[in-house]
């Protein structure tokens, strides 16, 4: 008997064509299937030190993301971080972290299926996001390395301003909100499209 492996599909698979119609100042692509682990640990504790040594990182403080490397660390609460890594890394990372933590008090949980990630870049990123985000996204207030969990067009997101891409932003959004958020992004871009003269993104 053949047991078929269930097919994986990301919440925004099939959206590439619509993303391609966005104005030239905004590029959007989905980064599906990123490894995401929730880390709960008391800052400054032995377990926190063990995690930092294991990953070769420093757990960033409030509203900050660690500089992107093999594993990107996002602050999501005073004793909580989200570890983001390429697809397929969860088993390796979970085993390494749990062995490093040992009997100390911390938890690491695989939440990779919870969210998908949108990578936004281009000069229009902050302007478009500002239409649905109450936070000041001016680089002087929200510089590279900022990590803000907030509402974007009423949808819960974690917004990360990346260091290495000028005006690059990553949006981590729950899978069930992803198509809504993508639809909102397309709509918010309408006025910046040169080819529609301000008409809808699908030409109507």
């Amino acid at each position: 008997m053949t047991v078929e492996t269930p097919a994986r599909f990301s919440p925004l698979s099939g959206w590439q064509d619509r993303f391609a119609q966005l104005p030239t100042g905004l590029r959007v692509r989905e980064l599906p299937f990123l490894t995401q682990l929730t880390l709960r640990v008391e800052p400054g504790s032995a377990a926190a030190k063990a995690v930092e040594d294991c990953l070769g990182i420093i757990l960033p403080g409030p509203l900050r993301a660690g500089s992107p490397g093999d594993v990107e660390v996002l602050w999501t609460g005073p004793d909580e971080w989200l570890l983001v890594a390429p697809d397929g890394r969860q088993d390796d990372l979970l085993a390494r972290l749990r062995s490093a933590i040992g009997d100390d008090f911390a938890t690491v949980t695989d939440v990779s299926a919870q969210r998908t990630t949108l990578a936004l870049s281009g000069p229009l990123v902050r302007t478009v996001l500002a239409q649905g985000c109450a936070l000041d996204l001016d680089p002087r207030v929200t510089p590279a390395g900022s990590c803000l969990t907030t509402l974007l067009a009423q949808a819960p997101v974690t917004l990360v301003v990346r260091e290495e891409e000028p005006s690059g932003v990553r949006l981590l959004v729950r899978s069930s909100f992803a198509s809504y958020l993508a639809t909102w992004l397309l709509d918010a871009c309408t006025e910046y499209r040169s080819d529609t003269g301000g008409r809808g993104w699908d030409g109507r």
Partner: protein
Amino acid sequence: MQLIACPWCGEREEIEFHYGGQAHIAYPDDPYALDDEQWAQYVFFRDNPKGPFAERWVHSAGCRRWFNALRDTVTHEFLSVHDNRAERPSRTGTAPAAQHAEGQEAGR
């Protein structure tokens, strides 16, 4: 829209928060020792002051942490916000239920 200063995240719009009622209501040391009247007081009765009121709030759309706040119920102004692990505010409700709750908490 009113801004509320989360102790961790700073000022955010009020829709990112949820209200959690009066702060500093301690769970009874020995719930089985309470009669129905005392249990009802603990479960249902809260202060309703006109003026500063110590309340619980949660930053549900942000860091998802509970914190305490001192809010003026007349002006809606947040007089202070603080991490739950920090000291309680100096001004709290003056109604008898609050003093009762304070006594309970102090006795823990």
